[in-house]
C-alpha cells in the first residue's frame, strides 16, 4: 500500500469513527457515562491514596515517646542520653526540653487555673524534670527505642537511674493499635485500589463489547464486501478512543466542583490536607492518568471485543 493510500485510509477510518460516534447518539452517551464512572473511580483512587498517605503520615508523626528525667538529673547526663539516642538508627529526631521550658509550658497550659499556679508558687522550686521527646522513623520502632531506654544506658555514670518515667509504657496499647491500623490501612488501600481499578476496567470493557455486539451484523456485511480487518476495526477503535477522551474530559471537569466541595471538609478532618488544592497542584498528572486510562481502555476494549466478530 502506498503512503498516500495509507493516509486516505487513516482519514476515512477517523472520519467514519466520528460519524459512528455521533450517529449512535444514545449508545455513545451510555458508553461515555459508564466510562466516566470508571474513570471517576480511578481518579478517586488516585486522590484517595494521596489523602490516606498524608493522613497516615500525619498520624505517624504524632506518635512519639517522652522520657521524663528525675529532677536531680544533671544536664550533662541528659545530653549524653540524648546523644546515644540520636545514634540509634531507628530514631529520627530527639528534642530536649529543659526543666525551665517544661515549667513554662506547664504554666502556660494551666494559665487559667489559679489553684495550680498557687500550689506551684508554694512549692518554691521547679517540681518538673527535663524531657526528651523522641520520634522514630517508623511507629513500629518505638518498642526497641523504649527497650534501649530500659537498659543500662539510661543510667547515669554514678549508677543511679536518672529516668523518672517513659510514657511509652503508659501509651503502649494506643501506639501498638495505631501502628497496626496504619499498616493495615496501607494494605487495604492497595487491595481496594486494585479491586476497583479492575472492576471499572471490566465494566468499561463490557460496555464497549455490547456496543460492538450491536454492530455485529454490520461487521459481517463489511467482511462480505471485502473490507480488510484493519479497515473494519479502525473506526471501532476510533469510537472507543472518543468514548475515553469525552469521558475523561467530563471526569476531569466534574472533579473540580467535587474536590472543591470536599476541600474544607478534608482540611479539618485530615489535618490540613485540602483535596481541592491537591487536585489543582497535581492537575496535569491526574489529568494525564485519567485521559491515558480512558484512551487505553477505550482502544483496547474495542480491539479485543471486535476480534470475535471478525472471524468470517
Amino acid at each position, binding site marked *: *500500500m502506498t503512503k498516500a*493510500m495509507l493516509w*486516505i*485510509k487513516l482519514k*476515512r477510518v477517523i472520519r467514519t469513527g466520528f*460519524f*459512528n460516534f455521533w*450517529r*449512535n447518539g444514545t449508545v455513545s452517551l451510555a458508553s461515555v457515562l459508564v466510562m466516566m464512572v470508571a474513570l471517576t473511580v480511578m481518579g478517586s483512587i488516585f486522590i484517595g491514596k494521596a489523602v490516606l498517605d498524608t493522613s497516615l503520615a500525619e498520624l505517624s508523626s504524632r506518635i512519639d515517646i517522652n522520657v521524663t528525667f528525675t529532677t536531680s538529673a544533671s544536664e550533662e547526663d541528659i545530653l549524653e542520653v540524648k546523644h546515644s539516642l540520636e545514634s540509634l538508627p531507628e530514631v529520627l529526631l530527639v528534642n530536649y526540653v529543659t526543666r525551665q521550658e517544661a515549667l513554662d509550658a506547664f504554666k502556660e497550659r494551666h494559665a487559667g487555673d489559679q489553684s495550680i499556679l498557687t500550689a506551684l508558687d508554694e512549692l518554691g522550686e521547679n517540681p518538673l524534670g527535663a524531657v526528651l521527646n523522641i520520634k522514630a522513623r517508623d511507629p513500629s520502632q518505638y518498642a526497641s527505642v523504649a527497650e534501649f531506654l530500659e537498659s543500662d544506658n539510661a543510667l547515669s555514670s554514678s549508677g543511679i537511674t536518672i529516668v523518672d518515667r517513659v510514657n511509652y509504657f503508659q501509651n503502649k496499647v494506643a501506639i501498638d493499635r495505631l501502628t497496626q491500623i496504619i499498616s493495615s490501612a496501607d494494605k487495604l488501600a492497595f487491595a481496594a485500589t486494585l479491586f476497583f481499578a479492575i472492576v471499572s476496567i471490566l465494566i468499561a470493557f463490557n460496555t464497549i463489547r455490547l456496543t460492538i455486539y450491536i454492530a455485529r*451484523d*454490520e461487521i*459481517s*456485511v*463489511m*467482511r*462480505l*464486501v*471485502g*473490507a*480488510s*480487518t484493519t*479497515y473494519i476495526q479502525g473506526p471501532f477503535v476510533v469510537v472507543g478512543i472518543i468514548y475515553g477522551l469525552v469521558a475523561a474530559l467530563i471526569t476531569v471537569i466534574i472533579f473540580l466542583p467535587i474536590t472543591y466541595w470536599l476541600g474544607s471538609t478534608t482540611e479539618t478532618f485530615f489535618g490540613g490536607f485540602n483535596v481541592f488544592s491537591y487536585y489543582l497542584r497535581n492537575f496535569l498528572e491526574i489529568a494525564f492518568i485519567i485521559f491515558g486510562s480512558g484512551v487505553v481502555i477505550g482502544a483496547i476494549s474495542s480491539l479485543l471485543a471486535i476480534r470475535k466478530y471478525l472471524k*468470517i
Partner: protein
Amino acid sequence: MIFFDRVSKVYPDSSVALEDVSFTIEPNEFISIVGPSGAGKTTLLKLFLAEDKPSSGSIFYQDNNVQNFDKKEINDFRRKIGMIFQDFRLLPNKTVYENIAFTMEAAGRTDEDIESDVPHVLELVDLVNKAWNFPKELSGGEQQRVAIARALVNEPDVIIADEPTGNLDPINTYDVVQILKKINDMGTTVILTTHNKGIIDSLNRRVVVLENGRIVRDDKTGKYFA
C-alpha cells in the same frame, strides 16, 4: 469460471447440507438455484464465498481453489463478487451514498473514483434523490435497490443474489429482477437463489434444482417445478 467439484458439506451434528454437488457456471451466465428451504442453497453460497469450508470436494474460481485463499486473497476475491441478500444488510448508520461508497473505500478506491461512480450506480437503480437518506427511511424495495447498487459499484465479475425478492411485494420483485437482468446483459455473471416460481418462469434462463443437498435437475432454460 466457477466450478463446484464433488462438493459435500456435513455439519458437526452430522446433518448433510450438500452431497456430491458438481456443476460449472460459465462467464456471463444467469443461473438460478432453486429448491425448498433447507435444500442447501445458502450453504452452497457460503462455501463459494469462503465463509465456510466444504467437508470434501473443491470449489474453483477462475482455476483457483477458493479454500486455498489466505485472508488477503479472500478479501480481494470478495471484492470481485457483489452480494445481495434477502434482508438487504445495509449499514444502518450510513446513508445510501455512504453505504455504496463504503464498498469502494474497502476496495481501496480513490475519493475521485467514489465521487464519480456512486452517483452513476444510484442513477442505475433510480435512487439519486435518496442518496442522503438512511436505510431506515427507505421502503424495502428501495433498500434492496441500494443493496444492488452497492453490489454493482466495484464492477464485480459475479453478482450473487440470495433470495433478493423474499421480503418484497410483487412490484418491487419485478423491479429487482429487471435490474438483475440488465446487469447480466451488461456482462456480469448472476447467481440467483429463490423460491419464487414466477421469477424463474419469466426469466427463462438456466435453473439448477437442489433437493436435500443434491442436484436433482440442471436445465439450460428451465421452468420451476415445485
